[in-house]
């Protein structure tokens, strides 16, 4: 695995500069049951295809960002800072 991730702040960087932060998914509501929290915490979609993920640019700007990546080809379609999704 040696693809490049375009950091919105720093530009294209090796994936080894980043920490993977898991799938982007909405958290359960405040009044959700422990079972829903359990599901949120332990279960993953683990998509074979396009998914949105958290990445932390550990060796760069030290910011969290979101990346839309094809988990099969490692093609990164888009990266953006949280809440700044384009299009």
């Amino acid at each position, binding site marked *: *695995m*040696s*693809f*490049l991730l375009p950091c919105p702040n720093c530009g294209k960087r*090796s*994936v080894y500069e980043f*920490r993977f*932060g898991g799938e982007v998914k909405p*958290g*359960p509501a*405040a009044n*959700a*049951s*422990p079972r829903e*929290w*359990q599901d*949120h*915490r332990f279960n993953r979609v683990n998509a074979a295809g396009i998914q949105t993920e*958290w990445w*932390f640019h*550990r060796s760069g700007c*030290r*910011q*969290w960002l979101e990346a839309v990546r094809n988990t099969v080809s*490692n093609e990164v379609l888009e990266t953006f*800072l*949280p*809440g700044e999704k384009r299009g």
Partner: protein
Amino acid sequence: MKFRFHERVVEAQPGDTIAAALYRNGQRVFSRSFKYHRPRGLLCVSGRCPNCLMNVDGVPNVRTCMTPVRDGMKVKGQNAYPSLDTDFLSITQRFDWLMPVGWYYKTLTHPALWHAAEPVIRKVAGLGEILPSAPTHYEHTWMHADTAVIGGGWAGMQAALAAAERGEGVILIDDQPTLGGQLRYRRRIGPIQDDIIHRVRAAGNIRILENSYCFGLYEGNLLGVLQRDPHAAAAERLVHLRAGHAIVATGAYETPLLFPNNDLVCVMLSTGVLKLLHLYGVQAGKRAVVVGAPAPASEVSVELRSRGIEVVTVVHPDAVLRASGSSKVDGIQTRTGSFSCDLIVMCGPRVPDTGLVAQAGGKIEWSAAAGAFLPTILPPHVSAVGDAAGETVVNPGVPLPKSKRAFVCLCSDVSSADLCDGIAEGFDQIETLKRYTTATMGPCQGRMCQLSAIGVCASQTGRSIADTGMTTSRPPNPGVTLGALAGPKHHPLRRTPMHYAHESLGAFWMDMGDWQRPRYYTHHSTRSETECILHEYRAVREAVGLIDVSTLGKLDLRGSDSGRLLDNVYTHRFSDLRPGRVRYALMCDEGGVILDDGTISRLGEDRYFVTTTSGNLDFVQQWLEWHLTGTGWDVHITNLTAGYGAMNLAGPKSRDILRKLTDCDLNSGNFPYMDCREAKVSGIPAILLRIGFVGETGWEIHCAADSAEELWRAILDAGHEFGIRPFGVEAQRLLRLEKRHIIVGVDTDALTNPYEVDMGWAVKLEKKDFVGKTCLTQAAGDRAREHLVGFVMQGPGLPQDGAAVVVDGQPAGRVTSSRYSPAQLAGVGLAWVKSLKAQEGTLIDVRANGELVKAKVTMKPFYDPEGIRLRQ
């Protein structure tokens, strides 16, 4: 220049490789084959075949045809006893009928058989031996280029020049000592070479990596390049090269023809013979027979004759019956007669080196016109030029006779008959045939044998070569030394600002993550570790001690929503913390599991100072920032860990010392327990937190790292009259254990919730929302399955950390921390037990020194249970 080859001293000429010098001095056998110990001599002279591997200065499997001679080097043959020229183990070829293809799978069918056979096989087969003490030097470096060109021949240099003229930054990688490729030894192409090499060298934006080979083309055009320093023993540098565009100009390499005894010493590829002749002035033989199609054979013959080598005859490959000779070739039998000779020159098929294109995801397909596999579909940002793309490759068909002595794979002695046997046994796909026979799997990685193996497979199965296909090309190819991949053993080391002060006090160091911390101080005395630690302990309990706690994670939070963020992420409430107050802080995940703890001080209305455990800082900062994303809250988090030094002054006399150094009112009435102030200490601006991890009156003092050593010395000087001692991590662990203060990650694990460690008081379930609220609410209502309790040993012996707790003969828990407590005059510790046993005074059994010893459970601290001393 001279070097040693076994017991011989060999003279070399300037520019010689080891192989060239040995050949000139009469050495013909360079290695012994893997299985049959057949003598093998130079074949390709280009670093692609396995025949010239030797041990050089203790490093095994060095390609001597590519390694320049260094004065005084020591060279040895491999896999031969007693010598390369006389190898007793060559007897094994007489028993080849005992070792059919797939011998391992057919014979060693039981583990016991393998265990019996393994030592013998390891001795007889195989390549060089690794000498762990051999001198080595490995480095890693990173490079970037708009365009990387792999291959320094004509096509590669043209491509590099074209890219350079477009203004791109170019890196040109060539595995030879100097640019030129086949221009260097194919003289017919003529004088244009000097001009182009000069232009490449003169171009300011072309960086040339010579003696370097690219072993892998990875995702994102990351090239693995191994750069060798030919003038130093085992000096290799791994280059991580990221290129916008990769141009594969690796050329085509010649491969052997198939006929019986094609592996005899002095049966060589024409390119190898020409290289010896033109690069090193070495005649490979006196009387040569050239085997090849008319065009290449006549080119080679002209070259040989012009340099005084007699060409006995030129033979078409179809006419060859066998080569003859025992230790080296002495003749050839053909359909038109027998000829005696001392050299057979093979003009074999030229194979485009497309491995990198295939690794990058390109498609390689058989071209009947070229008689070669050529790249047809190239991946994005990768191109192939020159012979690697098949530009001048035209291979006529070659005969593929079935014989036990027609070697397809030189690396592991696989003949065409072996391949036929494998196919007959059902391994008739090229990928399964490869795995069954190990053809293409040796040091040459299929370079010498792949085309022949595919040809044999195709003809035996009646399929076309196109349908047979080729085996998958995987990096690394060529192979890379593991040392180069591992690189130098750099490990980051973090030192606190007071490091050298500790050193002058005779600190005994311990590693904690990347940090170095004093475990205890010897004061350059001969006292034992236990005595040193006990002295430090006594100083803190009876007088005063000072410990460096700079490794604590330190975060500065500013902004009007800081309290809101902390309320959300930590279990306690911090928005209502009064400025000037400190509160214990516990962090849990969504499942209610403890992640980290520390203290949070409110230094101002919108300003908090957060400490974390030493090892968790990065995680905590990222966790806080993740919870901040998308909220739009006004919070700025700054990591001050390296910017601040910190020390904890603790003990009944700590106030007396601090009073000498600061104007700040230190009386408990004005500066009570769990308060914080910003004040100057010894003239140095500092943050003072009145907290008590070790259970005595004390202050944790943070100041700029630049001043920390000065402040440390000032406090020690001021404390001299009060008997101050610096104390290390070990004394601190004992002191905190007596207070039953937990260490997250030592006393807790990946399932621990706050209620199991009696810290429900730090969880404010009435808060509207915070991370872990749902699960913690449930945990608060349930009866915990396990509980962390204190215990006091009722007999001699001290359990080790992790020792078993036993109840009624059944395992019932485990010890997380234990020490001898001077306060209790007994062993004390913390242990996980079933909740039913978590009652004051319950007796449990703890395993200590192999025996079960009674211990009494307590839920109170072992020292100062009411916490009077730290509030004084």
